[in-house]
């Protein structure tokens, strides 16, 4: 419930909507009360009878539930494929959800569907709608050539158990691209954009069945609500919270949305750093870093899937404080700053001082992450990222590592090492770093430092790997890097 000393002072409830406005395939729907706390796919399938969207895993790991979600951005609607099963309705105020049913063209099957039929891209048919949505999104009208590799990269979020994927790739290749229409052509923005934008901007307060949902429009409202509702869950992309709620691991009584906060999608690229506002999705981060810190952008290819990166935010990944959060090690060795904003002040904390224990941070309960400043590695610095998982794509790290080194004449002048998956938090290997300074990175050094490396980590055995494997990787990534450097820098994981 909303505490009296929570939002009420700051926000007259008359200015707050008590419902959500969600568009589905061009049609407006009002969502009230406890319905706001339901997953999108339940609502689509069971209430709207749009059963083309399938649910398999309910955790964003198979893509059968892929839908397009459009939001008003700079006077247009920007659509992206996301996993509908881990989107909750309360995240979708002012959004336009386009399902497989919405991608039907007037004349019958759309060209993507036609190609799936002709090229045997569907067998049992359960994953097919999700694939069609993802492929349609990939092939939206554009003159850009899309090579086979890009096709695979865009479909790593969709699992198929029948075809062995080859017929699906054939289908994508077989699509008559000239006939593919944009979502805007199917759902003209002029009819819905204004209402979408207005709804997205408005504050919302829904209290029902003992649960509350608040979508504030100022940071102050947000932090005050957070302070007044201990245990409140903050939701942005919801790619982790959605899973926890689906699986009954967490049922937060109050949920705070960051969606309508001002200056929330801002980013700044300067000579020495790139700064991302709190709401910037991982997809946007990846796009920006492709030009700015390529190693980081490539690493992001293995962060979840396109659907996950389209929804999840960088701030969320950091706030989640998982020891296997993929962006933590790189940002630690780059010594990124996390900008925390409270009711009255703002402070910047080095990410290296941010984590205090398993899923624990220095963030106070009246603060939000409003920005992340990522310093650029200097020209000539060694900056390498490694992720080892059971499967290369759409998997959670068994082990991850980030290495930054400043070299001079073959000697390490300065360095930072951060490992994920080897302890209750991501670990900085400070003793090893100290011993590495002034030495070359070679087998002799590593033979000597091996014990130090192992002394700084405390891996466990779990479903993703044994402690002995993690110990082995902790040393081997450095040996691998030494080899890469000795052989003239082939880049991570490239054959040498």
């Amino acid at each position: 419930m909303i505490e009296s000393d929570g939002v009420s002072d700051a926000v007259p409830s008359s200015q707050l909507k008590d419902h959500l406005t969600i568009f589905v395939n061009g049609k407006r729907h009002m969502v009230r009360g406890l319905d706001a706390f339901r997953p999108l796919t339940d609502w689509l399938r069971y209430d709207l009878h749009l059963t083309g969207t399938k649910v398999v895993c309910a955790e964003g790991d198979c893509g059968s539930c892929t839908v397009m979600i459009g939001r008003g951005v700079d006077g247009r609607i920007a659509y992206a494929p996301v996993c509908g099963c881990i989107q909750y309705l309360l995240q979708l105020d002012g959004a336009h959800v386009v399902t497989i049913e919405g991608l039907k063209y007037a004349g019958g099957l759309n060209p993507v569907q036609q190609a799936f039929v002709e090229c045997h891209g569907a067998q049992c048919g359960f994953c097919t709608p999700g694939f069609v949505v993802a492929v349609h999104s990939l092939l939206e009208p554009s003159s850009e050539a899309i090579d086979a590799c890009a096709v695979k990269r865009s479909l790593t979020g969709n699992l198929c158990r029948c075809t062995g994927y080859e017929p699906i790739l054939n289908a994508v290749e077989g699509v008559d691209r000239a006939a593919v229409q944009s979502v805007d052509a199917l759902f003209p923005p002029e009819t819905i954009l204004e209402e979408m934008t207005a709804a997205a901007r408005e504050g919302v307060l829904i209290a029902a069945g003992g649960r509350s949902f608040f979508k504030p429009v100022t940071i102050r409202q947000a932090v005050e609500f957070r302070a007044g509702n201990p245990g409140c869950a903050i939701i942005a992309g919801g790619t982790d919270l959605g899973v926890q709620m689906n699986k009954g691991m967490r049922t937060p009584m109050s949920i705070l949305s960051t969606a309508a906060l001002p200056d929330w999608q801002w980013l700044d690229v300067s000579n020495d750093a790139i700064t991302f506002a709190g709401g910037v999705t991982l997809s946007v981060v990846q796009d920006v870093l492709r030009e700015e810190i390529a190693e980081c952008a490539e690493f992001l290819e293995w962060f979840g899937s396109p659907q996950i990166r389209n929804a999840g935010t960088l701030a969320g990944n950091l706030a989640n404080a998982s020891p296997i959060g993929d962006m933590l090690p790189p940002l630690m060795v780059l010594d990124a700053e996390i900008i925390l904003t409270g009711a009255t002040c703002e402070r910047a904390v080095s990410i290296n001082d941010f984590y205090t224990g398993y899923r624990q941070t220095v963030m106070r309960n009246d603060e939000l992450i409003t920005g992340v400043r990522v310093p650029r590695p200097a020209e000539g610095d060694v900056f390498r990222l490694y992720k080892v998982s059971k499967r290369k794509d759409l998997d959670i790290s068994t082990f991850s590592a980030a290495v930054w080194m400043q070299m001079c004449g073959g000697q390490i002048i300065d360095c930072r090492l951060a490992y994920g998956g080897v302890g209750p938090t991501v670990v900085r290997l400070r003793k090893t770093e100290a011993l590495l300074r002034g030495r070359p990175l070679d087998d002799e050094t590593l033979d000597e430092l091996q014990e130090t490396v192992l002394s700084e980590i405390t891996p466990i055995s779990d479903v993703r790997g044994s402690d002995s494997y993690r110990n082995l990787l902790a040393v081997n990534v450095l040996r691998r890097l030494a080899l890469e450097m000795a052989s003239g820098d082939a880049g991570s994981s490239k054959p040498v």
Partner: protein
Amino acid sequence: MSYVGKNIPHDSAAGHAAGESVFLDDVPPMHGEVFVGIVGSPVARGRVQSLDLAAARNMPGVVGLYTHKDVPGSNRFGPVVHDEDLLVVDEAQFIGHPIVVIAAKSREVLAAARRAVRLEMEELDPVLSIERAITLEQFLSPLRKIERGDVDRALAAAPHSLEGVFDIGGQEHFYLESQIGIVVPGENRTFTVHSSTQHTSEVQALVAEVLGVPFNHVNCICKRMGGGFGGKETQAAQPAMLAALAAYHLNRPARFAYSKDDDMRFTGKRHPFKVFWRAGFDGDGSILAADFKLYSDGGCSTDLSMAVMERALLHADNAYFIPNFRATGRVCKTNLPSNTAFRGFGGPQGVAAIENLIEDVAVAAKIDALDVRQSNVYRAGHDETPYRQRVGNNTLPELFAKLRLDCSYDARRREIDRYNAHSRSHIKGLSLTAVKFGISFTRKALNQGNALVNIYTDGSVVVSTGATEMGQGVNTRLRQIAADELGVTYERVIVTATSTEKNNNTSPTAASSGTDLNGFAVIDACQTLRERLSEVARRLFAEHDPSGGDVATPLNDEPCGILFSQGSVSRSGSAGPGIAFTKLVQRAYEDRVDLGARGFYFTPDIGFDKETGEGSPFYYFTNGVACSEVLIDRFTGELRVSRVDLLMDIGESINPGIDRGQITGAFVQGMGWVTAEELKYSDKGVLLSYSPTTYKIPNISDLPDVFNVALLPNDACVQSIKRSKAVGEPPLLLGFSVFAAVKDALRSLAGQRVELALPATHERIALAIARIAVSNQPVATSASR
């Protein structure tokens, strides 16, 4: 003009792509329908100490709570042996073993009620491994054996011998649509069961038995499955039975749908195997003797484990003639969900056993493994299996020789040797393995099929059989066959949902046999109809053209000299215009000719004595070979399949597009089994890898960088349907070539044989490389000094 042989899209493809195909959970709940779920055992083995249902019972929206005491018929069930309790009576046998069934008005209430049940268990010591079961001699089956020659003597006399232990992991089906059943009660204790099942007759029988009603009171219908892969052969029955229990007591429609997590945790999987093997061979790599002791993990009950083991034994020779051969098998009883059918059905484990042996023999004999395979392959004069069946229409030597050339095996082998000699970051491996897959159910009775073909007075045709559609395209093929047989256009035929009311006593759609058994039955029914229609046509032609007396005498194989093609009917040898099929049908109706027919087929010439291990269990063999090349990161063990060349003999394909999809799909599924798909359990038997977050099936990016699939021309498989060969399972077994290539890579690093358990996960590969590094170290150190 024939539809058979044409590349026709799957008959549900448009609906699938549009999201309009209806799967069971897409069906809106009927009026009064209840949602059914279970509370299962939290421990792998234990007794119920206390069960408090009060809180759940008092919850608004909860309409029924049932335990074993509420089962009106038999609580004991099983497809072959009735040795599993549907609801726990005395002792829970696996985690998730149902104890309480709950029926509720909504999904939300059901979820809350499941949490509200208070259950305390006395935990008993569970058996969770094959090793433990062997020690305790806890088996589900008698010993099965296939034997030829004097194996012990041949092993002792062989110039070289080798032995090993090979652990083979299980596999989760990961059909995307989780198990589901909807039961609608009718009048007079009748029930309509909508089930996502590969075996409508079995669901019918098991639901009838649990309710204590005769089979004719239950009609089981399956429109389609969102994937099956064997997992819905017997284990689709539990959701149907549990829903039926609620429907019985409440007289309301009832739906039981597993979540993916619960489905993965509580249902059976591919059997893990442990193989103890010995081999005797000479310096040329000729295998003189092989001895396999196979143990499988059957889980808590028999299910299909006996038949799975039998097929494993019948495939432990794979493509190779071994003069002295012995394979014995035992099924272990453990406290895991009962393991069940999975594409290949024991065949993959049997083939893995011998292909793994060959990799190791080749290392010991210092001969390329492909040479060992080719010198032992079934060939003229050496074509009798250890169970005394001759390998007919044997394309194996040709497959090996052709693929060896086509994929440049020898040149790539030299290139890989060079690469491995200088690369310090990666190693490569290469292996070419085979499959010879026996087609027929090993249980003889199952090799039968029936079909119902109805022609309506507008000339449209409905076909139904016992075949169930799980994506494999059986309905499309049956349509092609029926259209050809009746001489109508493809569009005029539809294949409708499988139902026990239309087709009784059907066999599961399994063992790759769906098209063979049901297609022949369709042909039989169509022939009956054609004969009847030919009679009518003869009269019709005689009326129109009294001089054309030639139609009375058959000129060729066509019955009565009447030709049916593309919707028109004509006299053979007559150039005159024919009549429309529809016209003929209407005339037949007027003449009171039956326009519906039942067809039947049983596979001839098969038989196998399970006690002696001898006979001809298979009608024919589907053969294939695949060559896989892998690239392994020496530091992390990460594996990439860089190239696969696959060559299959599937006779004359009925539908090349669908068959190709079966081949690529099966291969990739097999590749997943031998690489990243690892079932991990806690020491209490809790499955830890129970969702796609932790259980990793192949992703689109795991496809081999180069993936060549080719078919060997073969028109000589005369006995099977339209000269085709069954294709559903065999290519899965070629996935083993990826595992063999990993072993080959490790061999090149170690310079000797390397033990590796299946699946070859990144972790297992990395730890194997680390062991090799340690064992090589003294040598390396002394060499460098």
